[in-house]
């Protein structure tokens, strides 16, 4: 057993209201998700002594804790983009294992869709002028995120012969899962031809290769092993975790076809004492179709360069041999800006057998992988039930 294996468990998960919530602030959504996750666990806000938060506003963790009325003894606002919450699981398990806290809340929400409609959306390509990307990338017209991921997809196609049809397989599979999820945003049928006929955003990525823009958030409660056994729901054990980041600017990515999931995944598998063949279910960050394909390779579910062939024939879809993103993913279920928290929520529900029409049978292990910040960060969490 690795350093953090079964030292802590996820005992409560919840989403806030999702989709389009123009009458709620992100703080209201965080509070809503937190209340629901505490109820799921059978805990109260007074049980929380570890606080984990990531977001885009100034000193957000203190703002959110103040709003919720939490004065944590352990606080972490690690912010590697969309992978933040997978990083948080490792940090929470470590802190719990070290006795620095007992029960941790991981929480987050954004209102990107409402903000866009209200004309108050954040401009992600106007950072501090001191940021190297502002000096060396932005003057050429680079913006985030779509062209960044397009640069990777183009290189993968060149090196390995990956096709737009193969990328579209990923979007189609996500849509099939979403059609089984009552709270998913996009539930209408989608075909490979529909993906290819959708507007070109940044070659080679079409609109339907790209994730949604939504409002919403989620919360995850993690507690120590001893306490987890006495709570309302079956403990979802943290078996292994790993994290890595390799660059910030896409121009500095060591290899445009290799994400840091290669390193975070290795670490998580080593800690869990498991390999890819031991994993029943995958929840992979799908900011874009290419992101999923890269993670399948980097996590060892297929050899590097084989991702395109691997996803053919709807292998990732319901009734496929490799179920991925069983809630519909960022491509069709929800994408609030940092999808990583929803990976954990869906994996926990699948492991507890709560997913009704989209439940995968016999799930004992699940792997969640978050990717953030221009394919720059990766956090891997392997979860399991007894």
């Amino acid at each position, binding site marked *: 057993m690795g350093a953090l294996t079964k030292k802590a468990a996820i005992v409560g998960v919840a989403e806030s209201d999702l989709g389009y919530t123009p009458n709620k602030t992100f703080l209201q959504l965080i509070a809503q998700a937190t209340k629901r996750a505490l109820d799921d666990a059978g805990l109260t806000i007074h049980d929380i002594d570890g606080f984990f938060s990531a977001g885009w506003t100034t000193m957000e963790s203190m703002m959110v804790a103040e709003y919720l009325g939490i004065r944590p003894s352990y606080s972490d606002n690690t912010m590697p983009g969309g992978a933040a919450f997978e990083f948080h699981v490792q940090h929470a398990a470590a802190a719990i294992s070290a006795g620095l806290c007992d029960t941790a809340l991981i929480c987050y929400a954004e209102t990107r869709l409402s903000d866009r409609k209200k004309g108050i959306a954040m401009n992600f390509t106007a950072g501090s002028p001191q940021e*190297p990307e502002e000096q060396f990338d932005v003057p050429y017209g680079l913006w985030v995120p779509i062209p960044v991921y397009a640069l990777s997809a183009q290189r993968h196609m*060149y090196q390995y012969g990956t096709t737009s049809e193969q990328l579209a397989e990923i979007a189609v599979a996500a849509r099939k899962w979403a059609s089984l999820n009552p709270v998913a945003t996009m539930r209408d049928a989608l075909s490979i031809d529909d993906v290819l006929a959708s507007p070109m955003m940044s070659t080679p990525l079409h609109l339907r290769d790209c994730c949604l823009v939504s409002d919403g958030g989620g919360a995850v409660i993690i507690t120590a092993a001893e306490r987890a056994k006495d709570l309302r729901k079956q403990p979802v054990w943290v078996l292994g975790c790993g994290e890595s980041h390799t660059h910030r600017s896409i121009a500095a990515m060591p290899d445009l076809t290799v994400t840091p999931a290669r390193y975070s995944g290795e670490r998580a598998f080593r800690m869990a004492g498991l390999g890819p063949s031991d994993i029943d279910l995958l929840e992979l960050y799908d900011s874009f179709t290419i992101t999923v394909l890269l993670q399948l390779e980097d996590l060892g579910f297929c050899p590097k360069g084989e991702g395109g062939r691997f996803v053919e024939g709807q292998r990732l879809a319901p009734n496929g041999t490799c179920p991925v993103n069983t809630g519909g993913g960022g491509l069709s279920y929800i994408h609030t800006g940092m999808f990583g928290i929803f990976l954990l929520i869906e994996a926990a529900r699948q492991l507890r057998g709560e997913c009704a029409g989209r439940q995968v049978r016999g799930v004992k292990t699940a792997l969640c992988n978050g990717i953030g910040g221009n394919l720059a960060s990766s956090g891997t969490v392997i979860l399991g039930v007894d």
Partner: protein
Amino acid sequence: MTTDYKKPLPYIHDETRTYWEGAKNHELLIRKCRACGAYHYYPRDLCPSCFSFDVDWVRASGRGIVYSFTVCHRPARGFEEDVPYNIAIIELEEGIRMMSTVVGCPNADIRIGMPVEVVFDDLTVDVTLPKFRPVDS
């Protein structure tokens, strides 16, 4: 050269001034470590390969290949009238990569691996941007 240039311009500071002065003189200057010999980009006061602070400025050959590219059909701020426009990661002969754009050929003719050479676009009196054009291989 225009004086009403509307696109984002780089914030030039002491660490990078030599690079941008080089560009104004139509030279692509890059940094090379005196300790381990590695080149790096973007230019900084230390070598990210070995953390030596003994780094030289050298003139790059200006030749390279397109490592990857994308044709943006949705614009960055300031690029609204350029759509569709390309951005490209160029791998220089010295083995380092930089963000840039390919000029002098239609977007449809850009290929990964195609040989390119640096050209200089004088945007304002202060800022010249290195770009790349195809060369016959």
